[in-house]
């Protein structure tokens, strides 16, 4: 009956020789697959997650940081290359590659028409994100809508897609890609794009990277904002196989999120935006950083690491009734109390220590005219650390608190690439192995983060890697014909 039902259990994709295989089905992988397919290559995309979890961290994203010289559809004013580059240089403290960064920045000014052609739709900045309306183009429906659109377009253009296909190793020949191995399967291709993310979902690796403090594994207290599938299997394989690494394994896009968030895939809604309106204390009920240093959107990306540096990797954002309705609503309800000792009790903090910290802060507040929309003149004096803006005494009950933990978005340790996105082995670029997205984002992001730049890197280098992989195939064919 095989003539009627087809060959039972046969996988038609396994028999085919593809020009390009793309490993990883998030934004970067999809951009690579679509670009390679457009260039005429036959493409197989291998996604480690099942279909309902496809897209890696891209399903949690919401915008793309875009260079533009004049107002565009959903972008106000202008955001020239130089300003973008300076912003990136500032947040990374100069730990970046200007060459690669500028490549991504320039691509961001021209990639959106291509994205639209593949079904991505844009919208003006969401409510509560006016500060991004100039620099960031938001995806209508968010990152999962973008991922869905790319998958539809990939299916439409004949890209073969396999879900639940985690590649565990590659066959390499002196820096040249030969085949990918998934358990017993061996898939050959003429070129390969690696877009399989960082290693943040790998608890063991995170433990090893952060080590122990006081007999406790620091990373055990971290939450992962994104996918559970970024195990860093191929990143580790490549580094062991002699690929040049870039970046520090403890560096990542790391924000302070609600401690009650799920271990994986908490996404955007677990963020807590009340920090600048009150004070933040650690588990000793002591303050440890200037909560009013700058506008929250410019500071949210440093607070994950700040909390990671505190004992037990936990902190508490404390506010009073004056702050309610002045920040984006968090997903979990706050702890609420009529007195500070009661709040301390609910949070498991030392009552007298918390009272002392709040009293000290309240006394140090110098008044001024509070304005949450400006860098106002409400600061503390004689307090260490100071609070330099929006410092108002916590004196209006009830008091509220949100517990905070470091939330890792993605790790920056990656493989070194050149402007063609080629993976390097001992300083030599591979002729047919390319990398895009988080697995190489560390080339641009040595540390720090600014909203939407992850998608800029993924889109730019995904497109570059896809085009280069297709070009490598074509060159191979030309050589074979010659």
């Amino acid at each position, binding site marked *: 009956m095989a003539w009627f039902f087809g060959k039972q259990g046969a996988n038609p994709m396994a028999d085919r020789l593809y020009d390009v295989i793309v490993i990883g089905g998030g934004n970067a992988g999809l951009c690579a697959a679509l670009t390679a397919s457009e260039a005429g290559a036959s493409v197989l995309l291998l996604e480690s997650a099942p279909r*309902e979890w496809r897209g890696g961290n891209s399903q949690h994203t919401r915008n793309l940081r875009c260079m533009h010289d004049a107002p565009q559809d959903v972008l106000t004013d202008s955001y020239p290359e130089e300003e973008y580059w300076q912003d990136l240089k500032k947040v990374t403290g100069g730990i970046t590659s200007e060459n690669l960064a500028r490549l991504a920045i320039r691509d961001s000014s021209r990639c959106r028409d291509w994205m639209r052609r593949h079904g991505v739709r844009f919208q003006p900045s969401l*409510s509560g994100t006016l500060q991004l309306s100039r620099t960031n183009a938001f995806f209508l*429906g*968010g990152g999962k809508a973008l991922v869905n659109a790319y998958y539809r377009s990939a299916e439409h253009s004949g890209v073969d897609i396999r879900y639940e296909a985690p590649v565990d190793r590659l066959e390499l020949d002196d820096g040249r890609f030969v085949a990918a191995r998934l358990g017993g399967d061996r898939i050959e291709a003429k070129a390969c794009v690696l877009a399989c993310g960082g290693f943040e979902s790998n608890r063991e690796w995170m433990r090893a990277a952060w080590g122990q403090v006081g007999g406790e594994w620091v990373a055990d207290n971290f939450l992962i904002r994104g996918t559970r599938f970024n195990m860093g299997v191929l990143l580790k394989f490549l580094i062991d196989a002699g690929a040049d690494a870039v970046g520090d394994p403890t560096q990542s896009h790391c924000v302070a999120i609600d401690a009650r968030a*799920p271990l994986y*895939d908490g996404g955007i809604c677990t963020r807590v935006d009340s920090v600048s309106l009150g004070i933040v204390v650690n588990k000793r009920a002591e303050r440890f950083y200037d909560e009013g240093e700058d506008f929250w959107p410019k500071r949210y990306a440093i607070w994950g690491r700040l909390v990671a540096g505190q004992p037990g990797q936990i902190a508490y954002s404390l506010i009073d009734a004056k702050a309610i309705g002045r920040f984006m*609503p968090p997903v979990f309800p706050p702890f609420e109390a009529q007195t500070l000792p009661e709040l301390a009790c609910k949070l498991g903090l030392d009552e007298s220590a918390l009272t002392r910290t709040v009293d000290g802060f309240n006394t140090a507040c110098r008044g001024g005219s509070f304005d949450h929309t400006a860098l106002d003149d409400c600061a503390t004096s004689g307090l260490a650390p100071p609070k330099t803006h929006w410092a108002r005494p916590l004196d209006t009950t009830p008091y509220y608190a949100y517990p905070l933990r470091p939330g890792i978005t993605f790790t920056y340790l990656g493989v070194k690439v050149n402007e063609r996105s080629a993976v390097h082995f001992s300083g030599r670029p591979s002729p047919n192995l390319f990398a895009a997205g988080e697995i190489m984002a560390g080339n641009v992001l040595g540390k720090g983060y600014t909203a939407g730049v992850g998608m800029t890197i993924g889109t730019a280098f995904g497109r570059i890697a896809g085009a280069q992989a297709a070009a490598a195939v074509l060159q191979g064919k030309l050589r074979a014909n010659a």
Partner: protein
Amino acid sequence: MSAGPAEDAVAEVARQLQICNACRYCEGFCAVFPAMTRRLEFGKAEVDYLANLCHNCGACLHACQYAPPHEFAVNVPQAMARVRLHTYSDYAWPPALGRLYKNSGLTLALALATGLALFLALALALNGSLWQRAPAGNFYRVFPHNLMVSMFAPVFGFALLALSLGVRRFWRDISPADRALDAPRAAAAEATRDALALKYLDGGHGEGCNEADDRFTLSRRRLHHFTFYGFMLCFASTSVATIYHYLFGWHAPYDLTSLPVLLGTAGGIGLLIGPAGLLWLNLGRHRLHGDAAQQPMDRGFIALLLLTSASGLALLAWRDSGAMALLLELHLAAVMALFLTLPYGKFAHGVYRAAALLKWAIEKRQPSRLQLGSE
């Protein structure tokens, strides 16, 4: 926990909107999410309003990073659909009949059986036969005009009254501060436009809503237009015929090229294509869309519309044959069942949704009371 199913449905929407309000990615799809961001808490009135503003397009489900299998299990279209059923039954007038929504399939079947029994018995009593040929398709020979008016006018009038009283109470609960009749002209015009054009089935990008998967399609919007405007054309046909009858003394049957027949034929065809297509889409809808428990209500209403249009067109086609009387009996039974169930079935969605659209059109013109910073 002594909360009933209605309270549970409201609480589930409130739970999900707490997540949505902290995420907001879906703001561009429709009016539900911009309306949500003007609120921090979601009580029964807010949830009733937002649930009826939701057009069940499915875009937010497919775009949701928290949709099942995520542990947050966010499925806004489904949670909203469950609340809508409670809205219809809670606000139904008279209140005792609200429970008819919960057994919509049975309600429809009973109404249809009642209509059939009524007209078959009437035909027998009046004419002694179910099978009758009348000169030039004159159906007043089977049922005199005044008899039909005396039967349909009160039922239709009651349906209008019941729906009006229901939606009035709904409006007072969701919008205690604004009188619907005092709505700014621009708001009323916008709400009318959004309802008539089914704006919120366009996905925010104009490419339509979701059916079987994450692909967008304008099918549902277009087929609903066929259905609604088909219905309105049939209504116009009846209205014109009424004017002809009472004002000019021109009595049916009318010529095939007369206005009532042309309007009725066009409407009937619309009411055939629209519901047939909607039924097809309904059968292929993604399993997570909407509330499966309401499929009898949705499909029953569609089937009744189909029966109404098909029997009406058949009546026109065979009005000169011996089957005319039987087709007439069938058609009148369908129309009677439709009228009887208007306030207690799927038809109510249009009335409550129009009210929610008006509320949104008013509200969006008012400044938000929240100051969440950087907005």
